[in-house]
């Protein structure tokens, strides 16, 4: 079994000493030292771009540090050698979700270690058995591991990747797995799935294994971790036992500023006349939804995974074919994304990298794309200067941290990438803002900026439709919440006075109904 290290009584210790890594102008890590032990959950916190993932890539041997060393129980580990790190008992779940198209679940679970073999050839039965057993440890027994990974939903894919680290495959002479490094594992999980992960983490530490846990979700960290390390701008700020640290202190150390609350203050109720009205809206995955959205209103959309939150936004944008009537300020809403943007809808998609940004292109290009016709002379001749000015102004409005608007989006941290998409949405002075998981993977500081931005827009009369699986976010921001279940409207509530437990009950109640 993996995680057997505790048996000797002495928990293994991994020392990271003075690790530095620079990318061009960015000092992503600056002499960071850290000690990780078996038997505890060690949280790693920091704003977007603080260097968390960079540190993890160094630990995994995927990248070499410019300076510094790593040692396990005093013995130095070679840099840039993924196999050696595996042999040292380290297991990784990296940040971005990576399913390999065309390979089965079981094969995806064996990506980072050799397949079981018989006579030199792949032993398929053993492969599938190992994968199924690992999944069973997470309580998943009804999943056919021979299915293609890409057939699964995001949550299930994440479960499979977590399970993959539990496969017992230490080779001869290797140290059994004892340190599990998880970079935002719950970002794509539902509450239920996350619970199961937490149970597994509990089991691992009980057996003497250690976990390095990265998350932007404060409640999870407070609940799971024994110690917490904060990075800021690539530098180590502090490592403290969690018992001695409160949420405020962590946030202060992460951001370097005091954020007294997670959400900006509510002003007077800004809700005005109806702007967007949908009657009997149906689309693939949606059945007969009626929605009224008022100007200045923030309307949350909640539900279990696959309930149709994303589909609702996509149907409004016209990227899913829809039936039923939808009017915007009394006029029928167009059926293509181009018409929707033109009429004053703005959309921030769920997967910013694949659905929103042109990663290799300048920030300006992403920002101006939906508004090209408006930003050009006669709708045809480009005006690069005007596009640049708009991008610069909006960049300031959303507090974008970038060298210039000519910088490529891929060089920005996740939170700043999300801000680029907000800038893009604002460039058209929208009447209705459609947000799909707008703060996924965004740090608390940037989240606060975004929340304030959303509030500010609402105060100016913009109607906001906010689809999110982050319940505190829905409750903290929205005036009203729609509850979806299997593509149908299962409830509609004012959020005033509602608690997280109420909302959860409503979501699950919808399922029971």
């Amino acid at each position, binding site marked *: 079994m993996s995680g057997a290290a505790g048996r000797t009584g002495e928990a293994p210790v991994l020392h990271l000493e003075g690790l530095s890594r620079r990318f061009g102008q960015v000092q992503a890590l600056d002499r960071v030292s850290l000690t990780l032990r078996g038997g505890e959950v060690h949280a790693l916190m920091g704003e977007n771009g603080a260097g968390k993932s960079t540190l993890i890539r160094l630990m995994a041997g995927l990248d070499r540090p410019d300076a510094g060393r790593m040692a396990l129980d005093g013995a130095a580990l070679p840099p840039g050698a993924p196999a050696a790190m595996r042999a040292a008992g380290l297991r990784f779940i990296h940040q971005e979700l990576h399913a390999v198209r065309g390979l089965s679940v079981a094969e995806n679970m064996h990506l980072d270690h050799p397949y079981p073999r018989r006579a030199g050839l792949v032993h398929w039965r053993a492969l599938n058995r190992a994968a199924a057993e690992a999944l069973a440890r997470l309580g998943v027994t009804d999943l056919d591991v021979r299915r293609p990974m890409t057939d699964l939903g995001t949550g299930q894919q994440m479960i499979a990747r977590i399970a993959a680290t539990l496969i017992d495959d230490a080779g001869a002479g290797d140290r059994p797995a004892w340190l599990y490094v998880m970079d935002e594992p719950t970002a794509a999980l539902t509450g239920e799935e996350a619970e199961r992960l937490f149970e597994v983490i509990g089991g691992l530490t009980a057996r003497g294994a250690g976990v390095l846990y990265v998350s932007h979700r404060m409640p999870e960290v407070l609940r799971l971790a024994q110690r917490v390390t904060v990075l800021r701008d690539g530098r180590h700020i502090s490592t403290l036992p969690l018992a001695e640290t409160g949420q405020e202190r962590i946030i202060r150390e992460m951001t370097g500023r005091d954020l007294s609350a997670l959400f900006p203050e509510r002003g007077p109720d800004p809700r005005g006349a109806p702007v967007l009205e949908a009657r009997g809206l149906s689309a693939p995955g949606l059945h007969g939804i009626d929605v009224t959205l008022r100007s200045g209103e923030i309307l949350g959309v909640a539900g279990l995974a696959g309930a149709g939150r994303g589909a609702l936004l996509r149907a409004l944008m016209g990227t899913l074919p829809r039936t039923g009537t939808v009017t915007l300020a009394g006029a029928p809403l167009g059926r293509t994304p181009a018409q929707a943007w033109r009429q004053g809808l703005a959309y921030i*998609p769920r997967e910013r990298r694949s659905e929103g940004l042109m990663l290799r292109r300048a920030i300006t290009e992403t920002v101006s*794309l939906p508004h*090209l016709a408006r930003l050009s002379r006669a709708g045809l001749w*480009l005006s690069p200067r005007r596009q640049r000015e708009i991008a610069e102004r909006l960049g300031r409005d959303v507090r974008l941290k970038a060298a210039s608007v000519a910088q490529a989006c891929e060089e920005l941290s996740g939170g700043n990438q999300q801000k680029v998409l907000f800038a893009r949405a604002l460039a058209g002075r929208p009447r209705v803002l459609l947000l799909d998981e707008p703060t996924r993977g965004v740090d608390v500081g940037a989240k606060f900026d975004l929340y304030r931005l959303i509030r500010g827009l609402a105060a100016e009369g913009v109607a906001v439709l906010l689809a999110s699986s982050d319940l505190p976010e829905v409750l903290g921001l929205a005036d009203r919440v729609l509850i979806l279940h299997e593509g149908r409207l299962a409830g509609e509530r004012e959020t005033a006075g509602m608690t997280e437990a109420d909302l959860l009950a409503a979501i699950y109640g919808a399922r029971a109904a």
Partner: protein
Amino acid sequence: MRAGLRRFGGLAGMVAIVLFFAVSLPDTFLTARNLLNVTQQVSMLAVVAATMTVVMVMGDFDLSVGSMASLAGVVAAMLFVAGWSIPAALAGALAVGLLGGLFNGVMVSLVGILPFVATLATLTVFSGAAFLISDGRTIFGRDIPEAFGAFARGGPQVATVDDRALLLPNLTLVALAVILVVWVVLEQTTYGRRLYAIGGNREAAVLAGVPVRALRLSAFAFTGVGAAVAGLMYASRVASANPTQGDGLMLTAIAAVFLGMTLTRDGQPRVLATMAGVLTLGVLDNGLTQMRVDSYLREVLVGAIILAAVGLSAMGRRGLRGRG
């Protein structure tokens, strides 16, 4: 800064090639006559490469341009044989280019076939059609109107050098016109910007309201017409048409676009950079021939130079992104 170095590295390489020939062939290389000649020699390639740039901007390819060029030439020639006037026959050939390009566009953007496969198949279809129409023959001699062949030989006179008229070749002028059109469309219009957006992230472009299907379709039509123009230029130059004569243009045009991409920020295709690539290839052929380099060795050298240019650029780019 490093990006700048890389790009200037590429440009410097091209300048170095020109200087090398200028020094090695002091009397003949850097003469107006020779340089004009080079522009004429590469004019057909320039047209194909420029319009190929239009689809490559979206991250697509069109492998059928060569056989479309052959087909267009053969169509014009057969229309001449059928007694059509020159303008009518040219219009007919261009219409074939447009239809072929639209067909490619439909296959790629509506049916959803990968451009590589779709245009590989239409390459075969167009080539077969060229053979069918011409019955596999070279159409030449009396069948081709005098004026058609004369066009490629003519051009406005710009000077008299050594008692011989120095012409600005008509083919060069045609190529310049096509390049200008492509440049304006790609760099100065929202249409072009949207094509670049498709290349940047197709999914994001769809969600941002870019009519991706219509644009891809039209871009392939553009490339089809460009290939037909080049085919007509070729037919005029050789005053004849045969069903394989344009085939060699395709790979060379793609090579020119890639060579040009080493010069641009971010390694995107841009039409002026493509032209630098085309001229480099043309100058290499011209200079190495004049230096009596064996034609086979010339081929090896051209391949090696492309590899060196693209390789240096790739390494520079990678250095920029870190050692990842």
